[in-house]
């Protein structure tokens, strides 16, 4: 044994050379490196998917706990149905006539179906509590859908040994996980009824109207009238304090009709995504309708503004994607105060006494009356 070891030590340079050639052959003339890399990608994606599955489970458990606390029966079946059903098929777009009406019809039908099903299992709960359940379930459902899509591509990549697909997933997964983590945390805030970042618009609306009576104008949407320096301000927002975004576009359209289209200005306030490096709570002012819906609500505001020949102001409060769904931060509250001052400034300096002005606080009104 010692002799062999001595011989090896004497010829260690030739052994190294042999090893080098073996490795050279394996690396350049076989598929071993690709196989090893494929295996590494596959394991990496599987680990991240397991993490995402955990997030989906955590979110669903939070919703289950909330429903059981509210004494809702048969909630498991309802949750499972919600996760798999309620998808919307986009209307035909190669024939654009009436596409907005058709899209609105499809979205509204889906929402009604969802609300009716929820009402069946929880008829005794208030509309606000039901809205909170619907929103928290929608968040869990969104997480589950993303998980399902990622799992589909992972299994497809594994099945066909498609290393390009697995590599793309492997590179994207860390960013996706970071972006999806706040979704699970957001459910806590919704369940408690705490205002979220997206509620910056309704918070500014509240600052304008305080506790003045709310008048119903459309489904889940209200308006209040206040007087600021002899201007009549019609403030539209979703009906709180439940989690809902309402139908601000329809409300603006109806309100304009009742005012015989005599409107001097329409101001929309909404939370907007900040770019990396920008400060949370920064307020910016521009032109147009500040609303991030699929189209039907935004177009109503734009059409009303055109019909009234009223300038359309947009005031935005900047925040990141996760800040928009998590409970409001102090910086966002400071942004709300700044946006309120900007709106007051627009009303006082760009309209005349006796004018009618519509102000719309866009966003989810959870925790805001």
């Amino acid at each position: 044994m010692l002799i062999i070891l001595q011989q090896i030590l004497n010829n260690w340079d030739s052994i190294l050379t042999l090893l080098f050639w073996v490795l050279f052959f394996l690396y350049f003339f076989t598929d071993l490196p690709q196989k090893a890399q494929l295996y590494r990608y596959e394991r990496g994606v599987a680990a991240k998917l397991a993490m995402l599955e955990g997030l989906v489970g955590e979110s669903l458990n939070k919703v289950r706990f909330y429903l059981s606390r509210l004494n809702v029966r048969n909630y498991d079946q309802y949750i499972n149905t919600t996760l798999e059903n309620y998808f919307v098929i986009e209307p035909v777009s190669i024939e654009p006539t009436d596409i907005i009406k058709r899209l609105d019809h499809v979205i509204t039908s889906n929402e009604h179906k969802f609300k009716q099903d929820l009402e069946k299992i929880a008829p005794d709960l208030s509309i606000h509590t039901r809205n909170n359940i619907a929103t928290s379930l929608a968040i869990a459902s969104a997480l589950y859908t993303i998980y399902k899509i990622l799992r589909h591509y992972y299994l497809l990549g594994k099945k066909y040994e498609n290393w390009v697909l697995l590599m793309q997933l492997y590179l994207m997964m860390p960013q996706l996980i970071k972006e999806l983590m706040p979704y699970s945390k957001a459910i806590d805030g919704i369940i408690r009824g705490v205002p979220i970042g997206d509620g910056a618009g309704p918070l500014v609306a509240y600052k304008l109207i305080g506790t003045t009576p709310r008048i119903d104008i459309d489904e889940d949407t209200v308006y209040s009238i206040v007087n600021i320096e002899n201007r009549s301000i019609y403030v539209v927002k979703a009906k709180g304090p439940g989690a809902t975004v309402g139908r601000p576009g329809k409300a603006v359209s109806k309100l304009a009709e009742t005012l015989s289209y005599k409107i001097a200005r329409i101001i929309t306030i909404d939370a907007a995504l900040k770019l990396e490096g920008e400060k949370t709570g920064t307020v910016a002012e521009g032109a147009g309708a500040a609303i991030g819906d699929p189209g039907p609500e935004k177009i109503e505001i734009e059409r009303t503004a055109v019909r009234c020949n009223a300038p359309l102001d947009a005031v935005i409060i900047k925040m990141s994607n996760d800040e928009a769904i998590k409970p409001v931060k102090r910086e966002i509250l400071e942004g709300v105060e700044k946006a309120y001052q900007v709106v007051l400034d627009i009303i006082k300096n760009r309209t005349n006494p006796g004018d009618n002005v519509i102000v719309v606080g866009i966003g989810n009104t959870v925790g805001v009356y």
Partner: protein
Amino acid sequence: MMPLQEISPDLLTVMLLTLALLSLIILTALLYVRLRSGFMKRMAMNPDKYDEVPYKYISIIKCVSNDHTADREFQEGDFVGKVIGECPKCGNKLVIDAIYAQYIARKR
């Protein structure tokens, strides 16, 4: 190439010591550069390792005539615009004017 056994043990020790010394100097220099660039500060709040989680919810209470403001911890059922009583100074309505969350960094 010289066989390993022909290198004297003294020379081997000197070589190893020189290597160790060089590595130590390089590591110290690297650490100094990183410390100077605020590396430790960034490490302390590395967003990859820490999550911002809400640990406390605060309700800000205000009198509608703006002569009284107070903070208290959020209670179940609180919402912005909720009338919670009368102002101790003027007897006007006391309402919840804002609710916000205080965040802490928690290790992921």
